[in-house]
């Protein structure tokens, strides 16, 4: 769309947007991978401690942080067009709304 990688000649003719990369690099991705592995070991370690009702929250929070890393760096959303972020947001809102509605039903029924 309006991202900086389609130069004028592309716009004039209404052709497709051909992707170009600016600085592909290995390093960042390896760092993200190390981060993901550390978070995995934290999840496993934390599961051994008896946190009671907090355990599920902590496990889900760590999973959420991990997926944010994957989405932003591995899936490149951090550097991508904003429309994709918007789409992900809408998708998550639909999911959460359905989840909440389900739990309204559950809590009133049981």
């Amino acid at each position: 769309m309006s991202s900086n990688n389609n130069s004028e000649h592309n716009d004039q003719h209404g052709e497709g947007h051909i992707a170009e990369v600016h600085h592909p690099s290995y390093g960042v991705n390896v760092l993200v991978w190390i981060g993901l592995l550390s978070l995995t070991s934290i999840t496993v370690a934390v599961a051994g401690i008896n946190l009671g009702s907090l355990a599920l929250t902590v496990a889900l929070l760590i999973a959420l942080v991990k997926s944010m890393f994957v989405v932003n760096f591995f899936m490149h959303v951090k550097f991508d067009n904003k429309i994709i972020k918007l789409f992900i947001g809408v998708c998550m809102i639909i999911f959460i709304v359905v989840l909440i509605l389900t739990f309204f039903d559950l809590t009133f029924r049981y």
Partner: protein
Amino acid sequence: MSQTNENTQPDYHVVHIHRDDFGSKMGLWLFLFTEILLFGGLFILYAAYRFIYPDGFAAAASELDVLLGAVNTVILLTSSLTVVLGIVALQKNNKKLSLFFLWVTVICGLLFLVNKYFEWGAKFHHGIYPKGPALQEMSEGETMYFGLYYVMTGLHALHIVVGLIFIGVVMWQIKKDVLTSTNFQRMENAGLYWHLVDIIWIFLFPLLYLIH
């Protein structure tokens, strides 16, 4: 816009490649959202039954091998990394390195499936399968847990197989120079799909294996 095709002015900078990388990426993302809602439905089902049967779920989850689950998590995270590195290598015009990284991904994916095979095999061996002797003696909550366990990990494993086929096609096209350092969107799409499968596992692992 169609008149531009008959443009008589010689302008050799205009490239009329019928290719839309952004559209291609967008299409794949839209597909990923349907996948998220497919697995999302199962996660909601899981949440609801875990809410109703907290004890049954905890008891059933203790049957699972946390180590095997953790190993599979590491395998999938590594395979996601190698897909990304493969894309970077192709963008840097290093075809051989790119194919090497993708081979590592494929091997990781296969290892994941082998682990799953042994995991499911052990469950079957203990009589935990539909109408299995052990499963029939379990409480309602445990039965629900194992139903969801098989459906969710099974559907996920199916996605691994599809992802491996997708990556295999991409590897073939890299080999044949169909995909190059200036035309890599299909490879990125294969990567996006693979990462989604990874993300689903990131949630499946704590939810199925780490309940106390």
